[in-house]
């Protein structure tokens, strides 16, 4: 669009008033503007000073100016001089008025971007895990216990959908007694001073996890899905494996280190905390593959020594895989594990020849455990 008014072959003569700043002193100098049509130059005649000639193609608008009444322009390559014009006719006469300046320091920018990503990656994947592994050995049992309690409260509050109470632990006395009886079968395989607290949370998710300080937590969904008490016992043995090797403690220390670093990256974007929570979920370090295999191995051994069939773990894995169609189950650290098939085969093979098994619970106890949340 052009605002030039053509009269015959001669364009209207541009003649306007402006305020000129030479860039050296805070002095507004009134100036007359005209255009040298031959040379395509804007001629600025500041009062009492020598005229300036700015090529029309090199005039740039200073963007995002409030009010809309003033047009502030500059000359490409001159960082300081400014011309403030009160009419907008000039816009149409400058062909590149809104062209952006070229990107400076491109390589420096790229270099720092790589450095930033690399240092964050290095800190989250190498430094923090290495330190967490070391520190987890030195944290005293009471501290570990407190860490576990804090995490359990956070999980119970985070999973509550009503927004009122944290999700409940299931405490039906008969069910509780059955669970204690199941836990007692593994006392022989536990280190002497290792505390163990087994809880059931009233939530349909098919999952179980271990927390620092010897907590093993089942969701109701897992007990509902299991068809024999041995399957629940197998999962318990696996989680006890994590407890004994202090995987949850390392994990908690790791996320303490990495969440602050991620907070840096996102800055104040969109309320921060929610995004941070999502980001932490995304990168949440699963227990390493080795930690899972070690916990499985612990479970086979513990089950065998407690006269229980290790193959029950395989049955439970298969059940979890069948239920995998439901999105919540995908969150389970069992499901996301890529080597599930291998682990099933390993668990099936783990039963020694001629193992004499004794039931972990009788029918009445198993019924009570299934009703622990009622």
């Amino acid at each position, binding site marked *: 669009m052009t605002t030039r008014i053509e009269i015959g072959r001669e364009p209207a003569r541009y003649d306007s008033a402006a305020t000129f700043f030479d860039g050296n002193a805070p002095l507004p*100098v009134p100036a007359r503007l005209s255009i040298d049509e031959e040379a395509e130059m804007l001629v600025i005649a500041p009062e009492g000073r020598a005229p300036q000639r700015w090529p029309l193609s090199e005039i740039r608008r200073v963007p995002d100016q409030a009010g809309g009444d003033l047009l502030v322009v500059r000359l490409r390559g001159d960082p300081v001089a400014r011309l403030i014009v009160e009419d907008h006719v000039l816009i149409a006469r400058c062909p590149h008025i809104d062209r952006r300046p070229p990107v400076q320091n491109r390589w420096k920018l790229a270099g720092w971007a790589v450095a*930033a990503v690399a240092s964050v990656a290095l800190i989250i994947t190498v430094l*923090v895990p290495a330190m967490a592994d070391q*520190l987890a050995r030195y944290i005293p049992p009471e501290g570990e216990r407190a860490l576990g309690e*804090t995490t359990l409260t956070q999980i119970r509050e985070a999973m509550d959908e009503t927004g009122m109470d944290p999700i409940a632990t299931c405490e039906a006395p008969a069910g509780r007694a059955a669970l204690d009886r199941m836990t007692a079968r593994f006392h022989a395989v536990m280190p002497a001073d290792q505390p163990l607290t087994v809880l059931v949370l009233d939530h349909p998710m098919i999952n179980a996890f271990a927390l620092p300080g010897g907590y093993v937590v089942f969701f109701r969904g897992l007990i509902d899905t299991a068809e024999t008490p041995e399957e629940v016992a197998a999962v318990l043995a696996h989680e006890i494996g994590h407890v004994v090797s202090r995987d949850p403690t390392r994990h908690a220390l790791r996320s303490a*280190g990495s969440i602050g670093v991620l907070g840096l990256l996102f800055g104040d974007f969109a309320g921060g905390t929610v995004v941070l929570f999502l980001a932490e979920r995304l990168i949440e370090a699963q227990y390493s593959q080795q930690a899972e295999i070690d916990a499985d191995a612990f479970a086979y051994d513990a089950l065998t020594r407690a006269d229980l069939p290790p193959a029950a773990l395989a049955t439970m894995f298969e059940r979890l895989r069948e239920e995998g169609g439901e999105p919540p189950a995908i969150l389970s650290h069992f499901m996301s594990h890529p080597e599930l098939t291998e682990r099933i085969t390993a668990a099936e093979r783990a039963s020694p020849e001629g193992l004499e098994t004794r039931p972990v619970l009788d029918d009445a106890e198993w019924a009570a455990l299934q009703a622990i949340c009622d």
Partner: protein
Amino acid sequence: MKPAMTETVLHTDFAGRRWRLFWLAFRTGLFTILTLGIYRFWMRTRLRRLYWSAVRPGGHPLEYVGAPLEKLLGFLVAVVVLAFYIGIVNLLLMFASFSIFEGASVVYGASFLGVIPLWIFARYRARRYILARTRWRVVRFGLAPGAWGYAWRAILHWLITILTLGLLWPRMTFWLEKYSTDRSYFGTQRFAQGGRWTMLWRATLHVWIPLLLAAGLGLALLAEMPTAAATLDDPYTDAVVDLPLPLDQRLLFFIPLSLWALYGIVHYRVRSFEILTRHKSLGGVSLAAEPNPRRVLWIGLSGYLLVLLAIALPVTPLIGALVFVEVSQMVPGDALDVPRWALAAAAAVLYFLIFLMWSTLTHVFVTLPLTRHYATRFTVQNADALSRIDQRARDEFAEAEGFADALDVGAAI
């Protein structure tokens, strides 16, 4: 050459318009969400250009010349430096807190305290960057380096303020402002902060009076309690207990007193700004600001109320609809069969929409009117002396406001 400035007092115009700001803040805020926060450097740059250019002392707009990419660069630099510190320090604090104190509260306290010096440091650096990228009549402002000096002074002042129960608060305000002002420049001319800290004392009265009254009332109520109980329990008196007012009614007095104290804080901030500005000089030039504390409080209160209303009216039915669909999922055999991911997506979109509307509308209803109020009541006195000032060199300052950005030092724009 004829001198261009004949006026001695320069008044300030404000050219900001709500709609223009609304669209800019909305558009750039949306891009920021869509780019997971990367666009925030562009958003902040563009918003600042708009705000700065709206403020026109003597009719000439301020200009903000900061660039988005230098902010991105500064941010990346800050991430490299801070990621190490934050990651390791948080991990060690977590370990120490659970090993020694067996609880998480110490972690939060300690990691908060550990960040305070950095936070103050970052605030000074951000001020330096912003001043270095601000021009008026094409002459650059500037702030000399001195962030660590500022940080340790600020921490000492805070400790003194806390130890004296806030009595020396004005002393902190004055000396910290003097530290920054005495290092600020306009072109070749340095600013100077004159006056004494005691001149701010009177401005704290609206905080002290309600606090003292509340303390007095609290003490009186405490002193009366055993008496009241004794009277009630006295088996030989069956007369009605004659308290002047029932206890719970007099507790209501705390409400106006706390509102008064809230006003007192706003009053102090506005009045101390006014007094400090009046005592600033720039060579022969002096400054004056006359913001009105009651007006500032009103703009803040009414502005946030408007924002809340403007968000609640359209969003409440949307949340209602979402909850309805969510609940109807639980009823078996219901015709409405919406997949879970769709519900989660709708909730996420709603969350970001509320966030976006909140940040956009606070610009329109709070930041803009406040800036206008402060700007239009600001004057430059004896402006003739400006002619002795020359341009200063550019402060490259590659780190920009990266530390402030990474540490979330709450800057509105």
